[in-house]
């Protein structure tokens, strides 16, 4: 399902003049939109190297307009001269960062495990669950997608307090799993549907059990789909703010909550905010560039029949 190169459209154009006009328009539009996508990122990264004067005068190009300065990164304790010294801000940042890593990896893994199993069951077997059939069960899972976080947030706030899971990573992991589970099931159902049933039939004839066939035959084939679902789930969990803002306070706070809480207190420290924002978006930017293929695969699952 990944997006592939297609070659056509050139033969549509008749005269050379209109050919060049057409090319110029296409590339112009592409470059324009690339600028729109990249400029905010560029602005954030450069701002993290600016001092107050450079920000207020709207300087844009490093080395030409202004002299880059480590001020923003120093305030996070991540600049070259402060990296080996103790820094409470850095400790705080690393703690939040690890919280984000643990919750998003934990939730994505849990969702992949139970989601893949459910998707496999739903594509291969027929269930009757009281008066629910397969379609109803699938619909039940997918319909969770429309559940807005705000509906669950307040009941969970109360429940988690009763259960003693408020401000814990496991509490966030469970909620995030719930949040990405419909998407995982959606992607994995598509994936399992594309695997021919004959493979498992042959495996069963060869004496494997149902679960043996699943683990030894189906799972390896479905692995790319699992990676795609995992990455998409990661992105959603990493960026989640609403639940994290309501349900965590000191121990389990994640990166987005930390970013959001910086803005209030004593005006905005542009440079340190920019450094923090840069640090918060870098992991996913890297994943996005390196694993773009899987992301696209995940997003287009089931979209095109």
């Amino acid at each position, binding site marked *: 399902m990944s*997006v592939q190169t297609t*070659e*056509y459209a050139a033969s*549509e154009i008749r005269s050379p003049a209109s050919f060049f006009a057409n090319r110029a328009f296409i590339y112009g*539009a592409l470059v324009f*939109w*690339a600028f729109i996508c990249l400029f905010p*990122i560029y*602005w*954030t990264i450069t701002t993290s190297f600016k001092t107050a004067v450079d920000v207020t*005068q709207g300087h844009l190009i490093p080395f030409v307009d202004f002299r880059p300065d480590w001020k923003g990164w120093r305030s996070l304790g991540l600049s070259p001269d402060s990296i080996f010294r103790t820094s409470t801000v850095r400790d705080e940042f690393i703690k939040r960062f690890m919280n984000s890593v643990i919750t998003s990896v934990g939730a994505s893994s849990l969702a992949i495990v139970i989601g893949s*199993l*459910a998707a496999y*069951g739903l594509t291969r077997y*027929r*269930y*009757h*669950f*009281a008066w629910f059939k397969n379609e109803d069960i699938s619909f039940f*899972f997918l319909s*969770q997608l*429309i*559940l*807005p*976080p705000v*509906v*669950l947030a*307040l*009941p969970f*706030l109360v*429940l988690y307090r009763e*259960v*003693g*899971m408020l401000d814990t990573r496991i509490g966030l992991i469970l909620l995030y*799993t719930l949040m990405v589970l419909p998407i995982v099931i959606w992607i994995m159902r598509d994936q399992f549907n594309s695997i021919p049933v004959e493979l*498992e039939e042959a495996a*069963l004839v060869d004496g494997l059990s149902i679960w043996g066939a699943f683990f030894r035959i189906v799972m390896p084939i479905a692995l790319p789909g699992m990676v795609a679902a995992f990455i998409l789930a990661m*992105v959603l969990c990493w*960026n989640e*703010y*609403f639940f994290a*803002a*309501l349900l965590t306070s000191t121990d389990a706070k994640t990166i*987005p*909550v930390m*970013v*959001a809480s910086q803005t209030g207190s004593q005006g*905005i420290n542009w440079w340190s*905010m920019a450094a923090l924002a840069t640090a*918060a*978006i870098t992991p996913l*930017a890297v994943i*996005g*560039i390196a694993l*773009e293929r899987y992301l696209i695969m995940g*997003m*287009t699952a089931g*979209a*095109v*029949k």
Partner: protein
Amino acid sequence: MADQTLPTNAWPANAAPSDLISPGRKRLGRALMAAATVGLLAVIAVQILYKTEVDTIGFETWRPVVYAYVLWGVALGVGQVLTRGEDGQRALFLLPALLFTIAMVIFPTLFGFYIALTDWNLSSFSGRKFNGLDNFWQMLADPYYRNALFNMVLYVLAVLVEYVIAFGLALLLNAQIRARKFFRVVFLMPLMLSPVAVSWMIGKSLMEYRFGPAAALARQLGWENPAFFSNPITARISIMVLDAWTFIPFMMIMLLAGLQAMSREVLEAARVDGANAWQTFWQVTFPLMLPVSVTAIILRIIFKLKLADIIITVTSGGPGGATDSVSSFIYREYRDRSNVGYGTMLAMAYLIIIIIFVTWLLKFANRFVRNVN
């Protein structure tokens, strides 16, 4: 209820029939499930008695109930396999996700409906009081909630504009261009970034009134007073733009996949028949793309209905609630006023509105696609 899971006419047909299972094993399985159920109910009962102070033995928090539920789930799974053999093994694929979702959705939602009927302010000492439909009447009279709902309508309508842009971008990426992979990665980038970081990067700094580059550009273009977030209309538009910036790639990728799955013969045929690019698009490409478009738009609307983080971080609903989405409004209702009961009532009402709206949307979209094709 899961012991009613009876995979009939299940695939494959050569599964071990359940009469091969010895009666002893069946009995063991049933006993296990029964014991687990009794255990779970016992833990819950003890805890309720303890919390209502009828009893002195119990646990400090309700966490043991969670553990008991997990153990009950495991016992149920084992019991299924013991009593029903391969059928049980098949049920085992579905059970974890089902038990998880039921525990995480059904129970909290029901609990939520109960909270919605109480007068419960976390900052007051009186604790929770049942007050029937008071919250509901208060909600009907609340102009800010109505305003938030109206904003949601506007935000959802903005999806159509996003769709047009996303379709244009997908067409661009599908044209015969160099460096396609580069542009695809770049166009996908905004989707990867955390909305909170984005709201800071764009909303609070690029669009900053005094020295943000976007404000400077707006001044250059002749807008004398580019305060993006001080006037209700521009503030709403700014929020829409911010949200669009993050989510356009999502629709774009789906539409691009649709374009690439389209058969080239149809396009060739249109060209042979003498259609120009404009006609080809409207009479061939666009109708063929309708199913994908509808899927993309519906998914996007579903995500849009959850819109909160950008508003919370950029405007906190301001100026004067003009940019509030329902989620951000309820968030502040809780954060600033600790009004759990009323906030939950608003959330539950929103849930019902959403369910009705999305059901209607799906029906409408189905009929629409069928009529056109």
